[in-house]
């Protein structure tokens, strides 16, 4: 035996010898628009830019509804008001000097240095290479450390038994959840549901690193900020107008 098998080779051989293959001809299964077989990399960093000057309160309500529709949260019946999930919420901020009030949509900020990931004891709270922060519910034990660690109160805990979840968004009692930046859509080269719901250019989604992307170009010319920038988390969600 002159070659040692690594795990990958082993699985390959397994597939070849046992013929665990999928014969897809003529079978309609779940169809995928474009499916990448290459792992996501840190060459990209997905982000949002929310312009609070353009974003109306109606827009924000629309974003919240779009998120509920897309991801299937918001129909919990047994949870109390404080227990109900809120992946994205409407927030009002006031400039103490001028009394200017701005409304903004606040969801998981997809921090580059996410405190929620730091505190997770099981590695369930995790960041993809492309900057999207997710909860691996297979590993989540429901301890809620991440909810306490998150400076943006972005995460929710599911308090009741659920059924009829969205196919792309498994959710269940006893686990933590939050905005996924619509990762199931992003992986198909689509745009997050909340961004799609806004008609104006008030919310821009894109690759922060790509110098030809609209979000990158806009961020380079306008004044923008990160909420609680003092924490140095380098958020993926940026705001302008506040």
């Amino acid at each position: 035996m002159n070659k040692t098998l690594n795990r990958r080779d082993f699985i390959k051989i397994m597939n070849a010898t046992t013929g665990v293959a999928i014969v897809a001809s003529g079978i309609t299964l779940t169809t995928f628009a474009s499916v990448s077989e290459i792992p996501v990399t840190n060459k990209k960093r997905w982000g949002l830019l929310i312009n609070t000057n353009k974003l109306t309160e109606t827009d924000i309500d629309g974003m919240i509804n779009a998120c509920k529709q897309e991801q299937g949260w918001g129909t919990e019946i047994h949870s109390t008001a404080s227990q109900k999930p809120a992946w994205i919420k409407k927030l009002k901020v006031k400039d103490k000097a001028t009394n200017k009030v701005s409304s903004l949509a606040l969801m998981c900020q997809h921090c580059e240095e996410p405190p929620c990931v730091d505190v997770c004891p099981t590695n369930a709270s995790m960041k993809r290479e492309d900057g999207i922060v997710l909860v691996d519910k297979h590993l989540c034990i429901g301890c809620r450390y991440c909810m306490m660690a998150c400076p943006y109160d972005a995460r929710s805990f599911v308090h009741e038994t659920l059924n009829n979840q969205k196919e792309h968004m498994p959710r269940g009692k006893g686990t933590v959840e939050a905005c996924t930046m619509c990762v199931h859509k992003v992986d198909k080269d689509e745009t997050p549901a909340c961004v799609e719901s806004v008609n104006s250019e008030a919310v821009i989604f894109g690759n922060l690193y790509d110098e030809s992307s609209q979000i990158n170009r806009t961020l380079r010319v306008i004044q923008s900020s990160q909420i609680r920038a003092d924490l140095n988390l380098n958020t993926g969600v940026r705001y302008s107008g506040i």
Partner: protein
Amino acid sequence: MNRFLVVFLSLFVSSVFAYIDEYVNLGEQASSIKLSGKVFHKNPSIIRKMHPEFLRHKRDKTLRQGIRTNEYSLKGCVSCHANKNKINNQYYSVDKKGQFCSDCHKKVGVSFDCFSCHRTVPREDLL
């Protein structure tokens, strides 16, 4: 190494063959594929034995690396193996009594917890 592999493979293949259920509630689409003579799983016994591992690899790839291919996707299992109630044209949940997943799991006495989070019937627009 190869010899070891062969021994290992034959060991577990035989242990799988030890359990072949005559009655398996295959599910709507899976049954029609089978009837049409097409082969979807060339070796069902391997799937029977190894599906937890296949699914586990697949879930990590999907969730952590964004690789959303069809192979070993739980959505795929559910959309093929769900049964329809002929009266109201609604799918039964695959984890309900007498349905594909629960049938077998009950028989072998292994509990599973996929479906407290995952959707138990094919997706909305397939209904």
